C-alpha cells in the first residue's frame, strides 16, 4: 500500500510542479508574483473541456487547453504587466490579484457556477501489478508531466533561446547589453509557463473528472508556497518542492491518518524552510 500512496503523492506533486513552474519562471525573470497564473490554469481546463466536447478526442483537447492558456499568458504579459513594469513591484501584484478574481467571475458567468464533467477516455489503460494499481489518469499525469519536464530541460540547456532565458534570469540588463532580445524572452517565458499551467488544468480536470470556476483558488496560494519552498526562481527547486508537498500531503492523510487540512502542508513546509533555509531548498543564498 505504501507504493500505492507513493503513486498518489507523485501524481499530485507532478501537477503541482506544472502549475508552479510558470510562477517561478516569471519570478525568476521579472521578480513579480504572477497570481493570475492560477486563472490561466483554470482557463486551460475550460478550453480543454470545451474542445473535448467539440472534437471528442482527449489528446486534441489537451493540446487546445495548452494553446489557449499560452495565448492568454502572452496577452497578460503584453497588456497587463509590461505597461506597469516600471512601477513598484506591488503594482503588478495588485493587478495580478485583480485579474485572477475577474477571471474566476468570468468563468462563473460564462460556463455557469456548476461543476462540469471532463469524462475523457484517454486510451492508456491502468497499470496493475498485484494489488498496486496505477490508474489510467495517474499514468497520464506521470507521462505528460515527464515529457513536459524533459522538453523544458532540453529547451533550457540545449537551445540558444534557453540559454538566453537563463541569462535573463541571472541579470536582465547584462543579458540585454549582450544583444539578447529581452522582450521576446519575457514573452516566451510567459508562453512556456502558461503552456504548462494549461496542461495542468486539463490533467486535473480529467483526474478529478471535474472543472469548476474556482478550481484555481487553492493552487493560487499553494503554488506560491511551493515556489518559496523550492527557492524563488529555481526550476529544479520548484519541481523538488512540488513532489515533496504532493507526497507529504498524501502521507499525512493516508499513512499517518492525521486529520489535517491537506492544504496546510505546503505552508508548514514553507515556514520550516524559511526558518532554517530562507533561500529555499535549491535557491541561492
Amino acid at each position, binding site marked *: 500500500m505504501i507504493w500505492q500512496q507513493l503513486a*498518489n503523492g507523485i501524481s499530485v506533486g507532478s501537477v503541482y510542479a506544472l502549475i508552479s513552474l510558470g510562477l517561478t519562471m516569471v519570478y525568476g525573470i521579472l521578480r513579480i508574483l504572477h497570481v493570475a497564473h492560477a486563472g490561466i490554469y483554470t482557463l486551460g481546463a475550460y478550453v480543454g473541456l470545451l474542445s473535448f466536447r467539440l472534437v471528442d478526442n482527449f489528446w486534441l483537447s489537451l493540446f487546445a487547453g495548452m494553446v489557449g492558456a499560452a495565448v492568454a499568458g502572452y496577452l497578460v504579459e503584453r497588456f497587463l504587466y509590461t505597461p506597469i513594469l516600471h512601477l513598484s513591484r506591488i503594482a503588478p501584484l495588485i493587478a495580478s490579484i485583480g485579474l485572477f478574481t475577474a477571471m474566476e467571475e468570468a468563468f462563473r458567468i460564462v460556463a455557469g*457556477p456548476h*461543476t462540469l464533467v471532463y469524462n475523457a477516455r484517454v486510451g492508456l489503460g*491502468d497499470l496493475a501489478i498485484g494489488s498496486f494499481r496505477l490508474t*489510467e489518469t495517474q499514468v497520464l499525469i506521470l507521462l505528460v508531466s515527464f515529457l513536459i519536464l524533459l522538453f523544458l530541460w532540453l529547451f533550457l540547456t540545449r537551445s540558444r533561446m534557453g540559454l538566453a532565458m537563463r541569462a535573463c534570469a541571472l541579470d536582465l540588463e547584462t543579458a540585454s547589453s549582450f544583444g539578447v532580445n529581452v522582450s521576446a524572452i519575457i514573452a516566451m517565458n510567459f508562453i512556456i509557463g502558461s503552456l504548462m499551467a494549461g496542461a495542468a488544468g486539463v490533467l486535473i480536470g480529467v483526474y478529478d*473528472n471535474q472543472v469548476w470556476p474556482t478550481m484555481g483558488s487553492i493552487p493560487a496560494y499553494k503554488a506560491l508556497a511551493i515556489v518559496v519552498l523550492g527557492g524563488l526562481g529555481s526550476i529544479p527547486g520548484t519541481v523538488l518542492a512540488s513532489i515533496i508537498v504532493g507526497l507529504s500531503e498524501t502521507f499525512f*492523510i*493516508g499513512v499517518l491518518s492525521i486529520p489535517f487540512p491537506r492544504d496546510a502542508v505546503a505552508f508548514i513546509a514553507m515556514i520550516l524552510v524559511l526558518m532554517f533555509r530562507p533561500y529555499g531548498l535549491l535557491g541561492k543564498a
Partner: protein
Amino acid sequence: MRKQGLLSLVLAAVAFTMFFVGAPVAAQDTVKIGFFAPITGPAAADGMSAKNAVELGWKEVNDGGGIQGKKVDLIVYDDRLKAEEAVAIASRLMERDKVVGVVSGSYSGPTRVVAPIFQKAGMPMVAGYAVHPDVTWNPNTKTSNDFIFRNGFLGEVEGAAAAEFAVKDLKAKRMSIIFMDNDFGRSISAGFAERAIKLGAEILSKQMYKFPGEKDFRPYLTTIKEGNPDVIFAAGYYNEAASIVRQAKELGIKSQILGEEGFDSPKFLEIAGDAAEGVIIATNLDRDDPRPVVQNFLKNYRSAYGHDADMVGASSYDAFMILVSAIKKAGTDPKAIRKALLETKDYDGLTGKISRFAQGEVVKPVQIQIVKDGQFRRRAIIDNPEIITPPMKK
C-alpha cells in the same frame, strides 16, 4: 406631442396609485407563504431544485382552489447560502410581506440563523432538508424552537438507519467510514458508527476530509482498501460523493459503498457515471413508492422542468405542503398554524408517511435507494421505531 406626454404621465400616476393602493387590498384575499433557498451561489443546483419543486406545489394548490377559497401567494427569496442575507429575508418576510408561514428550501447555515428569529416572532417555519440540530433547538436557552418544524432527518437518525441496513440487510461486519468535516458529516457518521457498533459490527477506520475543497480521495481510499471492509460508509455532497465512488472504482475497491442523502442528486449520477452503479444510499425520497402523491410529483416535475426531481426538491415540496395543510386546518393565525403542525398525525407526505413531529423533528421511515441503470431505485425501507424516532433533547 405635449398632450400625449401629459396623458402618459396621468396614466403612469394612475398605475402607480393602483399598484400601491391595490396591493394591500389584493393581499387580503390571498394567503402569503414565504420561501427562501440558495438560488444563486455555490449551492445553486440545490436551491433551484428546491425552488422548482415548491413552485410546482404552489401551482397545484392554487389549481385545486387554493386554501379555503383563497389563492396562495408564494414569496420567493434567494439567500445565496449566506446567513446575513437570510436574516434580512426573515425580517422582510414578516414586516413587509406579512406572510403567515415560512418554508426553508435552504441549507443549515441560513436556516439555523433565521430559526430563532421566527421562533421569537411566533412565525411557523417548516424546513425542507436543513439538517443542523440548532434549527429546531436553541442551544443557549436549552429549549425547543417550538415554532420550527423539520421535514428532513437529523444526521444521527439517517446514519443509524444506514448502519441498520448495512448490518441487518447487507450482513456487513467490517466497515470503514469517510466523512466531510462539517456538522452534517460529523453527526451522520457518529450516528452510523454508534448503531453499527451496537449491532456488533467493527469500524476499521474513520477518516475525516476537508470540506469544502477536497477532490482527491485516493490517499483515504488507499488506506480503506488495505482493510478490505464489507461496507464503506461515505458522507459528502454530490461533488465529493461522485469523486469518492469514481476514485474507489479506479483503485479497484470492491467494497459496497453506502452513502447518504447528499448523494441524492442527478449531478451525482452525472459526475460519477458508471461508477455510481450499485451504490446504495440512505435518503428521504423513494422513487418507487406507488402512492399517487409520489408518482404524480415525479411525473409533473419531469414534464415541467425536463429533468428528474431529487431529494432536496422533494423535501422542500413536502415542507411547503405540510405548511399548506396546517393552514387549511387552522386558518391564517400563526399560533393556530403551529398548533395544527404540532398535531400532525399520519400525514401522507411525498417523502414518506409522517407519523408525527417530536420536538419539531419528523418521525417517518428512512428510505434506502440503490443506483440501477443510472437511476435511484428502492432497495429497502427502515422503519424500526428505535431508529427513526429522533433522540429527545433536554
